[in-house]
């Protein structure tokens, strides 16, 4: 059979033979490229079947001996028997329908095996051999119809499946290209079945090999271009292994690394060939491989742990390792797979987040959150060793001024400096935290007694108040007000302890700054009473419990009422009518001063409008809070309030400001006065003479009117010093061109004396008490009716509290 002398190869036979070789070569190439893909293996099977068919055909055609030719015909037909099943299997894998078509695949292979065995053991499907132009050719009997039907059906089913895939895919997409490639491969390959025609007596040249060669060439091209084979699980597994970021070590039960991936090479900085074959414990020290793997892993066959690995170039790395135990069918351990993740960066990041969450960004000090934790810990500790814990709430004095004057950057610098000083001032076991702004809180723990705490506080105050030279070259000095609550003498929860320290700080601040104040309960109750009273005042505003009383300013020389001072009263539901001096001091430094102040302005303006309707034209002066005037937008607020009362001319409104209050910010008040004068509103300096260096202020404050403080007026008849002051103020007013009003005029004697001194405009009980609006109007009418105004001696002797100021001091 293999004596080449018995063959005479025609050109076509050689062509078919070489096609067979190329088909095998192609499939070998595919298998080599895509070792892990089942598609390439099934492609090989199909190619071998085709090659068998081609080889059988070409030797059959070249063979001279009929009996040998019959054997080749058998080879050819055996190949043919396998072709449909192999092609169908390949298509199923290529389209990934093998799972769905499992039963069809099985049936197809059953048929293939059936025909294979039938051909091998019987003469089916041949009738005989005959010779034609290209050598021997088998002649098929009629029973071959079954064979051909099987062949054609399966090939058509495969074609249909590919066509459906082609139709279903998006035009131009990868699936579409793949299906089109496959379709082309099958159609071209199918042309090769013309080689079967001579077996039915139709004489054609058997050039099927050429088409098969073309088909496999197209297939190889399609594989290469459209990456047919990369979707298979095995291929994916390999790809995943090599593209995953976790280092994968596959270790046998003896603890030797059998396989590693490229991430392992990268993370462990070892060559793959060095890694594979080395001891797992040498690479992963915590791998803890023991003889008893079952015990080491426990239930679930997996374990996670963290370990470190010292890299040659990147130093110590933190690894998070997940180990899985792999067992064979008899549940014996066969391998351990370690997936190690480099979590160094993530740990750093989470440490950073931790830092952000628990620390202040500017100073790096712990924040309120962390302080709370430390405080709870310290209290727990204290209960064990019976020491004291101090919570020191610290607020900088004068920080705002530094910020306003030098800007935020310098302010921030100062805060950092203070933070450093505070930290340097306490022991390592103490905590300095920043609560925000210029507020810090310091936790001193393990104190043996209160004296130790006081010493620490004195130290803190001294350090903070030392001059501080900033980067800009300026030297600034700030101080601290510290409130302190002590545990366990103040046995409350941590939050309350901080609140108590805050309260005490408030008191320290009020008491004159640069000091500390220990919290005590009486103090808290006082503060609570104060806050409760402030709340009552706020409520009073809401419930409209305030009203304005009016006290006339009279020009006694001309016997003419020139204006009225509006004075606030609180109609308290239980305590009755309260004077401003009784409650205004409580709110003058609070935000509540602003709405109360605005209420006064509005009420006075509406009164001006109401009186104008009655034909009474009077200038009303109101008392304003310094805090209110120093609001940056006060002038705008005032302008918009004035706009709400078009019936009241702005020149009818006068604002009285207490001299000492104006001293708090002389420049600021001066600007406000200047701006408001543009609106037509005039100013009066109240309680004049009580401040220091009165003369200097008067030059700077462009107020039209000054009011001599009532205490001087009241006592001027008894005390020569007071008389001298009154006289001086009147002289000042004359010198600076300001009108002068004397307050606290209680008797006719006062009036007479003031007229002699040259002060004409007066206010006081001798003329009239402050009155409600209706009473004032009645009084005014009577006053006008009686131009020869005489005082009643009895009324004048009724000395009480004139309380004509709103500021109270």
């Amino acid at each position, binding site marked *: 059979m293999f004596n080449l002398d018995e063959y005479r190869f025609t050109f076509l036979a050689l062509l078919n033979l070489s096609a067979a070789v190329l088909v095998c070569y192609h499939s070998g190439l595919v298998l080599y490229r895509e070792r892990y893909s089942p598609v390439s293996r099934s492609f090989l099977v199909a190619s071998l079947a085709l090659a068998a068919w081609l080889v059988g055909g070409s030797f059959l055609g070249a063979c001279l001996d009929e009996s040998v030719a019959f054997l080749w015909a058998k080879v050819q037909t055996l190949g043919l028997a396998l072709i449909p099943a192999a092609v169908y299997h390949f298509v199923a894998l290529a389209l990934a329908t093998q799972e769905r078509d499992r039963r069809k695949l099985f049936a197809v292979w059953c048929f293939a095996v059936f025909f294979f065995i039938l051909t091998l053991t019987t003469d089916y499907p041949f009738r005989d051999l005959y010779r034609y132009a290209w050598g021997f050719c088998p002649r098929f009997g009629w029973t071959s119809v079954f064979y051909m039907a099987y062949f054609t059906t399966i090939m058509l089913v495969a074609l249909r499946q590919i066509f459906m895939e082609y139709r279903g895919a998006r035009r131009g997409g990868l699936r579409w290209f793949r299906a089109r490639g496959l379709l082309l491969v099958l159609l071209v390959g199918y042309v090769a079945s013309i080689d079967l025609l001579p077996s039915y007596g139709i004489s054609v040249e058997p050039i099927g090999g050429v088409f098969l060669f073309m088909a496999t060439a197209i297939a190889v091209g399609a594989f290469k271009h459209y990456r047919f084979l990369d979707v298979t699980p095995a291929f994916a597994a390999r790809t995943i292994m090599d593209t995953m970021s976790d280092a994968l070590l596959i270790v046998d039960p003896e603890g030797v690394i059998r396989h590693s991936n490229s991430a392992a090479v990268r993370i462990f900085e070892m060559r793959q060939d060095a890694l594979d074959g080395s001891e797992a414990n040498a690479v992963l020290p915590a791998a803890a491989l023991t003889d008893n793997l079952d015990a080491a892993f426990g239930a679930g066959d997996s374990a996670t742990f963290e370990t470190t690995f010292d890299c040659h170039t990147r130093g110590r790395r933190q690894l998070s390792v997940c180990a899985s135990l792999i067992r064979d069918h008899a549940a014996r351990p066969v391998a351990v797979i370690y997936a190690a993740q480099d979590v160094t960066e993530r740990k750093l990041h989470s440490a950073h987040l931790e830092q952000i969450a628990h620390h202040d960004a500017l100073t790096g000090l712990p924040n309120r959150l962390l302080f709370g934790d430390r405080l709870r810990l310290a209290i727990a500790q204290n209960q064990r060793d019976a020491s004291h814990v101090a919570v020191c709430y610290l607020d900088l004095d004068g920080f705002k001024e530094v910020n306003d004057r030098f800007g935020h950057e310098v302010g921030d610098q100062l805060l950092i400096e203070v933070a450093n000083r505070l930290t340097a001032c306490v022991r390592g076991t103490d905590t300095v935290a920043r609560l925000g702004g210029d507020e810090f809180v310091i936790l001193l723990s393990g104190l043996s007694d209160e004296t130790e705490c006081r010493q620490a506080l004195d130290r803190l105050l001294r350090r903070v108040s030392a001059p501080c030279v900033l980067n800009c070259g300026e030297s600034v000095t700030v101080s601290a007000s510290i409130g302190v609550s002590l545990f366990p003498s103040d046995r409350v929860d941590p939050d309350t302890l901080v609140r108590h320290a805050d309260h005490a700080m408030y*008191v320290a601040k*009020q*008491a*004159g700054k640069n000091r500390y104040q220990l919290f005590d309960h*009486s103090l808290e*109750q*006082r503060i609570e*009473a*104060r806050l*409760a*009273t*402030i709340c*009552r005042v706020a409520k009073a505003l809401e419930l409209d419990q305030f009203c304005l009383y009016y006290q006339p300013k009279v020009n006694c020389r001309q016997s003419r009422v020139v204006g009225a001072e509006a004075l606030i009263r609180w109609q*308290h539901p*239980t*305590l*009755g009518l*309260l*004077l401003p*001096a*009784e*409650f205004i*001091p*409580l709110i003058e430094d609070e935000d509540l001063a602003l709405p109360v102040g605005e209420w006064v302005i509005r009420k006075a303006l509406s009164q001006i409008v109401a009186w104008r309707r009655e034909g009474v034209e009077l200038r009303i002066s109101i008392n304003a809070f310094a805090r209110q005037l120093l609001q940056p937008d006060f002038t705008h607020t005032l302008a918009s309030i004035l706009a709400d009362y078009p019936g009241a001319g702005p020149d009818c409104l006068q604002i009285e400001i207490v001299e000492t209050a104006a001293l708090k910010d002389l420049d600021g008040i001066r600007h406000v006065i200047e701006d408001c004068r543009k609106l037509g509103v005039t100013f009066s300096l109240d309680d004049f003479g*009580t401040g220091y260096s009165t003369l200097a202020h008067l030059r700077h404050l462009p107020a039209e009117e000054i009011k001599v403080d009532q*205490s001087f007026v009241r006592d001027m008849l008894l005390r020569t010093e007071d008389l001298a002051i009154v006289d001086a103020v009147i002289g000042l007013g004359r010198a600076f061109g300001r009108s002068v009003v004397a307050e606290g005029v209680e008797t006719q004697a006062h009036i007479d004396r003031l007229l002699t001194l040259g002060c004409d405009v007066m206010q006081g009980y001798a003329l009239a008490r402050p009155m409600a609006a209706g009473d004032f109007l009645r009084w005014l009418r009577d006053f006008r009716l009686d131009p020869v105004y005489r005082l009643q001696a009895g009324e004048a002797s009724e000395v*009480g*509290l004139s*309380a004509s100021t709103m500021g*109270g*001091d």
Partner: protein
Amino acid sequence: MHNFEPLEWSDALLTGVAAIDQQHHILVDILIEARTMQGGDSADRRFERISRDLLAYAIYHFDTEEQLMRRTGYETAAPEAAEHHLAEHRHFSEEVVLLRAEAHLGKAGAKAALLSFLEGWLVNHILTTDKALGNFIVASTSSSSE
């Protein structure tokens, strides 16, 4: 009426009404504190604060007391005592306002005298006027609970 003994909290000042006693104790504390801060750089500012606390506390405490008087029917049961009580309250606040004005002018002697007056006032008020109210409240609550 002036009490020249140093002001001090003692059980003698108890009225029997816990809410009132607690507030009295605080009033006494404030006055003692005001007394102790004569002199020193910041004395004026501390005095300013303490006298302000006194004002606030007066409003707070008198409000409590006067509400109690109304609730317990003291005004109708003892109208004269109640009226006297209220008048004393008004007087106290007025004196504090005066004290503040004096302190503001730096009249130290006047301040000390006024403080003495306030201390004496407080003790007398508690011992007579408030105790009467306390007895009334204790009696009325115990009779109503029987």
